[in-house]
């Protein structure tokens, strides 16, 4: 039997990898992918907990997070498109008109 710890560590790793992606990708879409990974880690966590708690709430929670994640990605990509229209780039580092 695989322990809960293993799932949690796996999720933590995926979360960290996602964070790394968010921090290092130059392309805004790439950053979004990193966020996806982070949220995905959350799902692993939730399902693992649901399984080990023997509780349904975690599964419900997962359903909600999945839906919300999709919504978030949709909005994020729309913003990327809008920004691309105006600025002709999706490289996040170039978007620094506002600072200080």
């Amino acid at each position, binding site marked *: 039997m695989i322990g809960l710890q293993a799932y949690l560590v796996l999720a933590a790793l995926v*979360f960290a990898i*996602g*964070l790394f992606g*968010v921090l290092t990708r130059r392309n*805004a879409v790439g*950053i979004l992918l990193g*966020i996806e990974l*982070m*949220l995905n*880690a*959350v799902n692993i*966590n*939730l399902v*693992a*907990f649901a399984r*080990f*708690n023997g*509780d349904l*709430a*975690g599964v*419900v*929670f997962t359903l*909600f*997070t999945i839906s*919300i994640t999709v*919504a*978030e990605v949709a*909005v*994020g990509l729309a*913003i*990327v498109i*809008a*920004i691309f*229209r*105006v*600025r002709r780039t999706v490289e*996040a580092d170039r*978007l*620094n*008109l*506002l*600072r*200080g």
Partner: protein
Amino acid sequence: MSAFILELGLAVVALLVFGASLGARGSDRRWIAWLATGGVLVLGIVSMFVAPTRPALGGMFVQDGLAIFAKRLFLTATFIGLLAGISREGAACGRRAGEYHLLILSSLLGMLVLASARDLILLFVAFELMSIPLYVLAGFLKREDVAVEAALKFFLVGSVSSAVMVYGLSFVYGAAGTTDLARVAQTFTRGQPLLTLGLLAVFAGFAFKIAAFPFHMWVPDTYEAASTPFVAWLSVAPKAAGFVALFRVYFEGMGERAAAWVPIAAGLATITIVAGNLMALPQQNTKRLLAYSGIAHIGYMLVGFAAASASGTAMVLFYLVAYVFGNMGAFLVVEAVARSEGSEATAALRGLAQRSPLLALAMLLFLLSLGGIPFVAGFWAKLYVFWAAASAGLYWLVLVGAVLTVVALFYYLVVAKRMYIEPPASAGRIQLSRSLALAVILCALGVVALGVYPKPVVMAALRVAAPLF
């Protein structure tokens, strides 16, 4: 059903606006804005008569004193924000008026639910419902390069934060074995690693929402770029919601164990006050300046939060009320000047006292309130927060806060100097639209009334905060 009356009412208003926007023609759609504003006003009035009910949905949704207090605050802030946004030129009243107001209303719905949520899932959904429309609204001026840039930053930081938050929620759920916050609170003791980890991560998410240092970084950029009436609202309403959620998650039902959060909250308060105030010093753009000063104010509220007591909570609530009027007012004056001068720099305020004495006086009142000067609301807010912290033995925190207040006064006075001491760059009064003027007046009245007679609000705050502990 009576527990949901405000939420349902809001849904009705949103549907009305939706329907109206379908049938709207022409580029001047101020009437949609008026519709939304009126709806919110009605809801605000209704909220004044709402009484606490028993928890609904098996304890997921509570309409207690705190929730009602918070909802009144959200509705008031939203009303002022919508009112101020009504203008012929603004994007909010153009062809996209329907979208704009629907987004605001759905975000508001998120806040209302958030204030009542006592279930992790509901909390998260409400939190996201509040947040996602804000990303869109931040970039609502989508043909302005800075606006979309700000929206992207807001979105990126926001989604990472909510990822962290929901990651934390997963641990909270996992460790407590339930999504019911009341039971989480019963389970919580110091030294439960998973629950602690979860609550910390959730704290990070809230810290992003209320813009505590170092989660604040989206704030100045977003404030600078987004349309000012929206920013005025953004700077107060979601933050208030964030604090209410903080109280729900970290205090409600915790009792003595809430003291576990004191070091973290106090530390976060300290760095937030210091950083916010210092970074506000060199700002030349009034909105940016107000953004940083707002961060510092969050720090002061965290001081009250750090007290981890009923009085501390109540004082934060009072602070929020004072902050709603003071901060929104300041932003709205900036909007008024910007509409006339086309600039949001502090330099645009030069000689305002000689051009529009009353507008300058209003701005001065807001600044004094933000600076914590007697006879205006902010004074009591700071005083009470410090008092609560001192009662909790956090004298050092009070000292830090008080000293940094002097730094804060520096930049507020610099703005006052622009208005009162420097000669005007151009002559002529600043023209205000009626709705904006009304919004400014409401804020000024609020600031003064709370400054002269804070007692009712303080008492109400104390009353609603008491059951949390």
